[in-house]
């Protein structure tokens, strides 16, 4: 089987995998990083979103072999090593940006990517950026509010 090396949350992992292994499968089953959720497996929901070299992607629609050598950040790599939540995570907690929490890893990854590109997005920019992230619980209102708050804007 072919070998890949992927740097996940700052740590290098080398493994022999089948070429058809999805990045989401590699993260969840080989590395046991189950914070990356599979909501649909058909590219619709965004629960599986991670960053590859700093860029937001749906890990269920990327082959692990195709990101050989890349740096991947998952939800497990977002808080500080001592457990301090990132500003986006803290804002989701403060503003009730989650209910069941299933979509939350993908939402946090998308929001973190957005704020890296656009430090102070408008509400419309936040909603546009979240087009690929579905939430069945919250109605999005508090998610949008949390992201605006995380960017330091009054909500």
């Amino acid at each position, binding site marked *: 089987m072919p070998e890949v090396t992927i740097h996940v949350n700052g740590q290098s992992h080398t493994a022999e995998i089948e*070429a058809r292994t999805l990045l989401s499968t590699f993260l969840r089953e080989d590395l046991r990083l189950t914070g990356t959720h599979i909501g649909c497996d*058909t590219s619709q929901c965004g629960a599986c979103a991670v960053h590859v070299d700093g860029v937001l992607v749906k890990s269920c629609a990327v082959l692990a072999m195709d990101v050989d050598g890349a740096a991947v950040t998952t939800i497990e790599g977002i808080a500080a090593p001592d457990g301090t939540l990132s500003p986006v995570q803290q804002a989701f907690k403060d503003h009730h940006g989650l209910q069941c929490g299933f979509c939350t890893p993908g939402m946090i990854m998308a929001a973190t990517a957005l704020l890296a590109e656009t430090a102070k997005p408008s509400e419309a920019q936040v909603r546009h950026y979240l087009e690929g992230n579905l939430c069945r619980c919250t109605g999005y209102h508090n998610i949008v509010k949390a992201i605006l708050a995380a960017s330091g804007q009054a909500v």
Partner: protein
Amino acid sequence: MYAFDFVKPTDLKSALAALEDPEALPLSGGQTLIPTLKQRLASPSCLVSLTAIPELQGVCQSAEGLSIGAATTHAELSRAAAAAYPALARLAGQIGDPAVRHRGTIGGSLANNDPSACYPSAALASGAVMVTPRREIAAEDYFQGMFTTALEEGEILTMLRFPIPTRAAYVKFAQPASRFALVGVFVADFEGDVRVAVTGAGAEGVFRWAEAEAALAEGFDPQALTPLAPPEQEMIADLHASADYRAHLVGVMTRRAVLAAITG
């Protein structure tokens, strides 16, 4: 997914050599191909990734217009074409969602020729040329019906050449679940030579709407189109929209696109 091999060549020659295997398939952003593989609708022996080949990347402007590497992502194109061809850049920035735009590529989209994809309308309205290692194909000859193109076995798109119109706009009515175009219209005005291409609506895939082009050549004004709609019999009818609704939307989206092209 059925099992397959995977290679990621870093030059075009090696990619073409790997694609000589008739069972191999090119993999670009994978945003269409990976879901297809998951459904076991394809069983390639090998996937040949096109995303690490410098010749297939990037956007550059010349006297002939914009030359776009086939493996340029929607996100990259929306940035790189923003000044030279804003209508095309905006189209790219409205495809799917950010994660899809970070991986999906213009070459993958044009090779797939989904009847609801956005780029085919831009290519047809702009009079784009599809470049392959074997030849150059004019947009008119390239699109041959739903999911069908002039590409032969083993032939890949390497570059897309887009002439730049004087003014243009793309307006889509998004299908809310898939975010593809339920109906999308690209209007391009080349100094009075107006081209209107419609995606999402035609039963034969992307098409030029000749009647609207003639009306707009008389006067580039949304009013010029007021009673027009394409024939219902030629529209797609499915659970998302009936044929008469699509025909109606083509008229509305075309008027909006003309207005957007005028106001910039």
